Every structure is written in C-alpha cells, then in structure tokens.
C-alpha cells in the first residue's frame, strides 16, 4: 500500500513541477511582451510619422529641409521656418534656463539654510507639475501683454534698429546682428522671444532638479579638502563640484532641451504662428509642434503629409537629444558604482 502511494505521489509532483515550469514560461513571455511594447511604441511613432510623411519627403526631397516657403494655397511646403523656430525658441530657453537653474541648484545645495531647502525645492518642482496649457494661457493673457508693455519698448530702444523714437541705439550701430535681432514692427507681445522665455520657465525645474541631485553626489571629503585649503564656497562649487559632475550637468541640460523642443501647447499660444522667416526675435514665428497643432486638423493631402514629415523630424531630433542626455546622466551613475 505504502509503496503504491509513494509511486503515485511522484508523478503528481512531477506534473506539478511541469505545470509550474510551463506557467512560469508563459508568464515570462507575457511580461516580456509588455516590456517590448515600450520599444514598439517608440519605433511605431517614428515609423508612423515617416510613413505619413513619405509623400512630402518624396515630393520635395532634400529641399523640404531648406525651403522656407509654406504655402497651402499653392501646395508648396518647406520645413525651414518651423525647424528654425523650434531651434531658436529652445536655444533662448536654454540660454535663460541654464544659468537660472544652476543658481537654484547652487542656492539649494550650498547657500540656503537647511530648514528652507525642502520647501523651496518642492516649490520649484511644482513648476514642473503645472500643465503646459496653463503656461500657454498665462503666456497669452498675462505675460505677452506685460512683455509688450514693459520689456519690449526697452529692448527695441536700447538694442534694436527700429526704435519707436527713430534714434538707432548705440548697440545696434556698433555690434552686428544685435540690432536686427531686436528690431521689429510687431505690436503684439507674442513672439519667438516670449515663447522662448515661457519655455525657459517650463524647463527650469527639470534642469535644476537634476543639477541639485548630482551636486549632492559629490563626495564630502573632496569638498572639505578644498574648504580646508581655504577655498570659498563659490570656488568649491566652480572648481570641485562642477568638474566632478560635468557629464551629468550636461545630461540635465540636454534633458531640458529635449523637453523644450517638443513642447506644444505653451508655444502654440505665444509664438504667433506666422510662417515667415525673420531675423528679429521680437517677430512672430512658428515651431514644428505649433504648426502641427494649428494645421493638422484642417490639413489634407500633401499638407497633411508635410506635417507628418515635420513630426518625424521633431521625433528624430528629440530622440537624439534625449539619448545624449540619458547617456551623460548614466556616466555619473557608473562612476558612483550604481
């Protein structure tokens, strides 16, 4: 009897082990499938926009990138104006956001009294939580009029070549390009420059939180050695902390750039949406994302394809920028041995 039971028990255990192994395999596949969806959605987004934009790419060839004409009535489309607008607004955003973010990170890691650090850093991070449509509304109704009333007159009369009072400023006369960058006859606040400023506010929390985080990874003994040699706080930050964290700081900046390039709603409200190339930062322009948001709904045929082609360009550029960002950020993590 006992021998029989033992003989029967072995197969049951085997069956069970067998079933568990099969279930584990199936479960593993299910999980892997879900993870591959992440890969699939990135490839799909690139593929779908490339496929959608094939007509425009074939029709205009390389000229699509170099032509500044965007004319739905003649069915002629060139990407130069939105590409230029995207790059210039993002560049303005970085130009403002990088020093401000560095200042905030420096303040939060070295200057502020400890009890103030958490509330201030949470407040700055709140900026990242505000939806971009709110930035757009605020930019359109509040910031652009404020800018047109209080900042723009100052810029045009001190830096521009077409001031209201007719006197060309010293700067415009003596430094090339500056005059044209700030000369304009656009009475509204919405412009490439205001769009860049609003973008800057939007990416400050991202850059500053990365900077602050990596500043904290600097070994204390390095900083204390420098202090012991008589360095000032600024010298420790500039000569010790910054070189140590350089790659991650650059990574953080690229992360912000990636955000700025793809930002849609805020820019759409403020940039003015004019498909015309202008050297002046105070003139309205267009970015890739704003052009898509404005025109895709009513577009058909070649125009739709051109917009898809724009989306493909945007996706590829942001992908590369974000890739650089993550690789740079990873480098510091490796140094730490994580």
């Amino acid at each position, binding site marked *: 009897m006992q021998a029989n039971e033992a003989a029967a028990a072995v197969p049951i255990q085997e069956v069970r082990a067998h079933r*568990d*192994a099969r*279930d*584990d395999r*199936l*479960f*593993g596949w299910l*999980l*892997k499938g*879900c*993870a591959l*969806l*992440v*890969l699939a*959605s*990135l490839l799909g*987004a690139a593929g*779908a*926009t490339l496929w*959608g934009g094939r007509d425009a790419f074939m029709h205009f060839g390389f000229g699509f990138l170099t032509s500044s004409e965007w004319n739905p009535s003649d069915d002629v489309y060139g990407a130069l104006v939105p590409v230029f607008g995207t790059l210039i607004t993002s560049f303005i955003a970085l130009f403002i956001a990088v020093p*401000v973010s*560095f*200042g905030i990170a*420096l*303040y*939060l890691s070295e*200057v502020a009294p400890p009890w103030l650090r958490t509330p*201030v850093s949470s*407040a*700055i991070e709140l*900026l990242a*939580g*505000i*939806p971009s*449509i*709110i930035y757009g*509304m*605020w930019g*359109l*109704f*509040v910031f652009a009029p404020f800018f047109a009333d209080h900042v723009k007159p100052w810029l045009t009369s001190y830096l521009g070549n077409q001031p209201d009072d007719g006197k060309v400023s010293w700067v415009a006369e003596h430094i090339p390009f500056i005059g044209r960058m700030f000369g304009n006859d656009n009475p509204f606040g919405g412009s490439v420059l205001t769009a860049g400023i609003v973008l800057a*506010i939007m990416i*400050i929390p*991202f850059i500053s*939180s*990365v900077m602050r985080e990596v500043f904290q990874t600097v070994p204390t003994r390095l900083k204390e050695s420098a202090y012991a040699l008589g360095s000032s*706080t600024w010298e420790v930050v*500039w000569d010790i902390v910054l070189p140590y964290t350089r790659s991650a700081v650059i990574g953080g900046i690229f*992360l912000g750039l990636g955000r700025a390039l*793809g930002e*849609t*709603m805020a820019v759409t409200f403020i940039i003015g949406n004019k498909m015309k190339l202008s050297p002046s930062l105070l003139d309205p322009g267009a970015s890739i*994302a704003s052009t898509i*948001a404005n025109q895709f*709904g009513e577009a058909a045929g070649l125009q739709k394809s051109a917009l898809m082609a724009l989306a493909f360009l*945007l*996706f590829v550029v*942001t*992908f590369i920028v*974000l890739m650089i960002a993550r690789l740079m950020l990873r480098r510091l993590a490796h140094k730490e041995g994580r």
Partner: protein
Amino acid sequence: MKSSSLYLRRRIKNVVALGLSSVATLIGLIFLAWILWETLRQGIGAINWNLFSKISVYRENGGLANAMVGSLILDLLGIAIATPIGVLAGTWLAEYANRTKLGETIRFLNDILLSAPSIVLGLFVYTIVVLPTTALTHGDTTFSGLAGGIALALIALPVIVRTTDEMLRLVPSTLREAALSLGIPQWKLTLQILIRASRSGIITGVLLALARISGETAPLLFTAFGNNFLTFNPMDKMPSLPQAIYEYTKDPDPAINAIAWAGAFVVTMFVLALSLISRLILSRNKVSHD
C-alpha cells in the same frame, strides 16, 4: 598688501555669486507665484454652478460639464490601459531582465519615452487607431474617446514602468529567496508577494501618471478631437477639459476666456494636488523622478 587685495577679490566674487544664486531662486519662485496667482484670481472669479452642471459654453449659460465628464473618461481609459501593461513591463525589467542587455536597452528607451514630444505620440495613435477605423466607416473621420485614451496611455506608460521597476528593486532579495525555497513558482512569487510588497509605491506611480495625463492637451487634439456635447460612448468624439481650455482661450469673447480660466483653475488644482500627494509618498521612499 597684494595678498589682502586678492583675498578681498575672492570674497567679493563669492558674495556676488552666492547673491546671484539667491536671485535665481527668487526668479523661479516669482514665476511660480505669478502663474498660480493669475490662475487663482481669474479662475475663482469665473467659477459658478453652471460650470459643473451645463454643457458647452457655446450656448446660453454654458458650462464645462461635458468636458469634465470627457476628461474623466479619457483619463480613466488611459490609466486602465497603461496600468496593467506598465506594471508587468516594469516587473519584467526589475525581476527578469535586470542587468541583461535587452532589459537595459528597454529601461533606457523607457526613459526617452518619458520625455518624448506628446504631439508626435498623438499623431502615432492617429495613424494606428483613427485612420484604420476611418477606413472601416467609409471615409467619415472617426476620432474617438478610445483613441484619446490610448494616446494618454502611451504617456502614462513610461511613468508607471519606471516607478514599478524602481519600487520592485527596493524589495529585499531575502523575500524572494524565502518564497522560492518554499517551492512557489516565480509567477506566483511576482504577483502575490513582490507586487503586493511594493503596492503603495506602484499606486503612487499610477497617481503620478494620472497627474501627468490629466493636463495633457496635445495628444488629444487629433485623437479624441473634442465635442460640444455630453457623451459617454468611447467610440464617439470626446471632449476634455484641457482641450476645452485650449479652444475657449482662442475665442475672442472675454466671457468665454473667463470660462477657460475657470477650467484652468480646476485642472491646475487637480494636477498639483495629485502630484503633491504622490511626491510626498515617493520622497518617503527616496526615489528620484525627473
């Protein structure tokens, strides 16, 4: 003499730099206060009962009820799609593929998807959902709430994947070893022990994802499309709060702009409350989220 002037220069430089850093922080805080203050001021002034009980502002005494219901449906759809996929994918990264080449690649790509331009993801969903269904209906463009929900899910997905991944890696490996030594198959260990152990962290990730998608406009423009009427049918065009704000902001009528501000106030408060709560829980677990 010389050395004391050098010392003075270094001290001045230090004071100026640290002073400027405080100014930079002040600039950040001023803009935060300015944006919140305007949203509060203009939003509260326009809030009334009609906003929550009437549909579409383009009729007499209209409100945002249809947009709020639409937003609720779209956000829930997005979360309902993204949560199971995201949790399972995050589990794969942490438990099955940690330190493998494919796992590292997907983790890396997930971080990129986290900040990919949302309007391109919207166009992607337009291509794979709206265009095929349009072909089915012989040419009527079929924007739908479902398409909008899928677009939002794509934005929520990387947030959930990342939180799940990080939370599971915090679970002590003795727990896994103890369970496995009792003969539990790995799928049971994962579903019944590991995910349960990191439940609060994963839920926080879902809340964070909800905060992220409930303010999104761009991916909805060409998927859910918007609608001036109340609808519960996910195959119908669906309105949403952010998109209503977008349209009412562009309107030349200041009365309609005011309703956009009220909507902005509601969305901002919702999003900030959610992200504050989830950040509080996350900061207790010491996980970074950028």
